C-alpha cells in the first residue's frame, strides 16, 4: 500500500498552492465580503487547466483523474471555499455530465470551451420545491414536433448567473418519476431563459448561485443529453463523483482552519504564555489534525475507487459525510482558538466556518448521505 501522492499530483498541488498564495489568499476576504465572483482568477485557473481536469486531451482538457480533482479542490479550498466550489461544481457537475453522457457532437461543441474555463458550466437539478427529493421536480420538457419545450424553475444553481452552458434536468414522462427524467443542454441567452442571482448566502459568498427560470424555452433534440428517461440515473452517477470533490473541499477548509490555528496560537499570549502552550487548545488541534487526515484518506480512497473503475457510491458518500462534519468541527474549534478575533472578519477562520456549512448541505445533505451509506451497507449485509 502506498500513501504517497503520485509525482504528477504533487506537482499539481505545488503549482496550485503557489498560484493561490499569490492570487487568491490576499483577496478571498474581500470577495466574500462583497459577494464578488473572481472572474479574472477563474480565467487564469482555466489557463492552468484547472477547469478541465477530467476532460480528455483530445477535447482540450488535462485528462487527469478524480484524485487530481480532489487534490486541486482541497488546495484551493485551503485558501477560499467559494473558489473551490466554483472549480468543484464546474468540473464535477456541468462539465462532467456532458463529458460522460454527451454524444460526440455535444462533446466537440462544449468541452473545449468548458475545459479552458472560457465557458462556465452549471447544473440544474434542485428546484424551489425539491432538493433531497430531487425526483420530485416539477420542471417539464414536452416534445413538440422537432423541439423540446422546457418550463419550470431551478433553485440554488451554482454558476447560475455567470454560467454559459446549463445542464437542466426535466420531467419528460411525469408519471414515471425517476424513470421519466431527461437531461438537456440550455445555453445562456436562449429565449425564455432567465437567471436571477441569489444574494445573502451565509457562506460560499463569492461562488455564484442563482435561480433559473425556464418559460417555454425551446431546444432541439440535439440538445438532449443522454437517452430519454435516463436523466435521473445519469444524475446519480454525476453526484457520486461530485461528492468526492465536496469531501475534498471540506478537507481543504479543515486544513486551513488547523493551519491558521497553529499560527495564531503560537503568536497570541495569555497569562504569560503563548496560548499554544495550553493543553486544552493543543488537544483541540490534535483532534483537528487527526480528523482532517482521516477525512482525506476517505476522500482519496473514494477517488482511487472511481479512478480504477470500481463501485464507489457508498465510499463517496462516506467521504463527503465525514469530511464535511470534520470541517464543521475543525472550523468551529478554529474560531474558538482565535477567541474574539476569530469572531471577526480580520481572520479567515469565521469564513471557513461559514463555507464549511455548505458541505453538509450541497450535493446531498448529511442525512441523505447517511441514508445512502445505510442502503448500500444493508445491500451487501
Amino acid at each position, binding site marked *: 500500500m502506498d500513501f504517497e501522492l503520485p509525482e504528477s499530483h504533487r506537482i499539481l498541488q505545488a503549482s496550485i498552492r503557489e498560484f493561490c498564495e499569490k492570487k487568491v489568499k490576499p483577496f478571498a476576504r474581500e470577495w466574500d465580503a462583497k459577494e464578488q465572483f473572481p472572474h479574472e482568477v477563474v480565467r487564469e485557473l482555466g*489557463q492552468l487547466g484547472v477547469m478541465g481536469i477530467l476532460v480528455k486531451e483530445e477535447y482540450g482538457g488535462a485528462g*487527469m483523474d478524480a484524485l487530481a480533482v480532489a487534490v486541486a479542490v482541497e488546495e484551493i479550498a485551503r485558501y477560499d471555499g467559494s473558489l473551490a466550489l466554483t472549480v468543484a461544481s464546474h468540473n464535477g457537475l456541468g462539465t462532467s455530465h456532458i463529458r460522460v453522457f454527451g454524444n460526440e457532437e455535444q462533446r466537440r461543441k462544449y468541452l473545449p470551451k468548458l475545459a479552458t474555463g472560457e465557458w462556465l458550466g452549471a447544473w440544474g437539478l434542485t428546484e424551489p420545491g425539491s432538493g433531497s427529493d430531487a425526483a420530485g421536480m416539477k420542471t417539464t420538457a414536452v416534445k413538440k414536433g422537432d423541439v423540446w419545450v422546457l418550463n419550470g424553475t431551478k433553485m440554488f444553481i451554482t454558476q447560475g448567473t455567470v454560467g454559459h452552458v446549463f445542464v437542466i434536468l426535466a420531467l419528460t414522462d411525469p408519471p414515471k418519476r425517476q424513470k421519466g427524467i431527461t437531461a438537456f443542454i440550455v445555453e445562456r441567452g436562449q429565449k425564455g431563459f432567465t437567471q436571477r442571482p441569489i444574494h445573502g448566502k451565509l457562506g460560499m459568498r463569492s461562488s455564484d448561485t442563482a435561480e433559473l427560470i425556464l418559460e417555454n424555452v425551446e431546444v432541439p433534440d440535439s440538445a438532449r443529453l443522454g437517452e430519454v428517461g435516463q436523466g435521473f440515473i445519469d444524475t446519480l452517477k454525476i453526484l457520486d463523483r461530485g461528492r468526492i470533490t465536496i469531501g475534498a473541499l471540506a478537507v481543504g477548509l479543515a486544513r486551513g482552519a488547523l493551519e491558521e490555528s497553529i499560527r495564531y496560537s503560537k503568536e497570541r499570549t495569555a497569562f504569560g504564555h503563548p496560548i499554544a502552550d495550553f493543553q486544552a487548545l493543543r488537544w483541540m488541534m490534535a483532534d483537528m489534525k487527526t480528523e482532517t487526515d482521516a477525512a482525506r484518506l476517505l476522500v482519496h480512497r473514494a477517488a482511487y475507487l472511481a479512478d480504477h473503475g470500481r463501485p464507489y457510491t457508498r465510499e463517496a458518500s462516506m467521504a463527503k459525510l465525514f469530511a464535511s462534519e470534520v470541517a464543521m468541527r475543525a472550523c468551529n474549534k478554529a474560531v474558538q482558538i482565535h477567541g474574539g478575533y476569530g469572531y471577526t472578519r480580520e481572520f479567515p477562520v469565521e469564513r471557513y466556518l461559514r463555507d464549511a456549512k455548505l458541505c453538509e448541505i450541497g450535493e446531498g445533505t448529511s442525512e441523505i448521505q447517511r441514508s445512502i451509506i445505510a442502503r448500500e451497507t444493508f445491500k451487501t449485509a
Partner: protein
Amino acid sequence: MKILVTAKRVEDPESKIKVKPDGTGIVQEGLKYKINPFDEIAVEEGLRLVAKHGGEVVVVSIGGKEVHEQLRHALAMGAHKAVWVNHTGPLDQMGVAGLLQKVVEKEKPDLVILGKQSIDDDQNQVGQYLAEWLGWGQATFASKAESFDSENEKNKVPALVVGADNKTVRVVREVDGGLATVECQLPAVVTTDLRLNQPRYASLPGIMKAKSKPIEELIPAGLGVDVTPKLTVTKMSAPPARKAGIKVPDVATLVEKLKTEAKVI
C-alpha cells in the same frame, strides 16, 4: 536556440527550517522541497526565449532520484528534455560547476541560464566558475528594466535580447544602486536575479505532457569529474533570536532615535 537551464532541489522557503542539535545539518523530516526560485526564473526565461526564437530548453539537476520531481516540474512548465546527474553525497560549488561543464560540453547549448544562487547555501558561485571553465562570457544577476506590471511581462516577452545574427545576447544586470546593460557573445552563461521575470505555474496539461518527456541519466564517474569537495561545512547554527523591538511615543522620538541610536538617517 538550445538553452540549458538548471533546476536545483531546495527546501521550500515556506517550510520551517530547523538546525540539527549537533550542528551537522538541518532537520529534513517533514520538509517540502521545490525548484530553487532563482532556477525557476531561469527555466521561465529559457521558455520565453525559445517561444520567440524557436529551439529547445534542456533542464539539468544534480542529486539523487528525488530530483526527478524538480525536473518533472520544469518539464511540466514546458522544458523539452531533462538531464539528471545522479549523485548523492556532499558536493561543493566547484563540483557542481565541474559537472555542469561536462553537461554543457555534451549538450552544446547556445546559452546556459542558472539562478544567481540557490536559496539553501546562498553561495553565488556556480555560474561564475562555469563561465570561467568554459571560457565563455558571463552576465550575472540578469534583471529587467520594466516592472512586473508591464505589457512585456504580461505577454511573457523574454528580458534577454538575442542579437539579430544570433551571435550575442544583451542582458540588463542588477548592480548596486541601479542597472547595467551588457552585451555578451554567445555561447554565454547568464545568472538570474529575482526581477528578471515571474515564472509560470505548471499547467495541468503541461504536467500530463511532462510524463512522457525524456530524462537522461548521467553519473559523475561517467562524466570524468572528480567531485570530492574542496570545501566542507563544519558547523551549522540557527541565527540568533531577534531581540524584542521598542515602542516609541511619537514620530519625533522615532526620528531622533534613528539619528542618534540606529544612526541610519
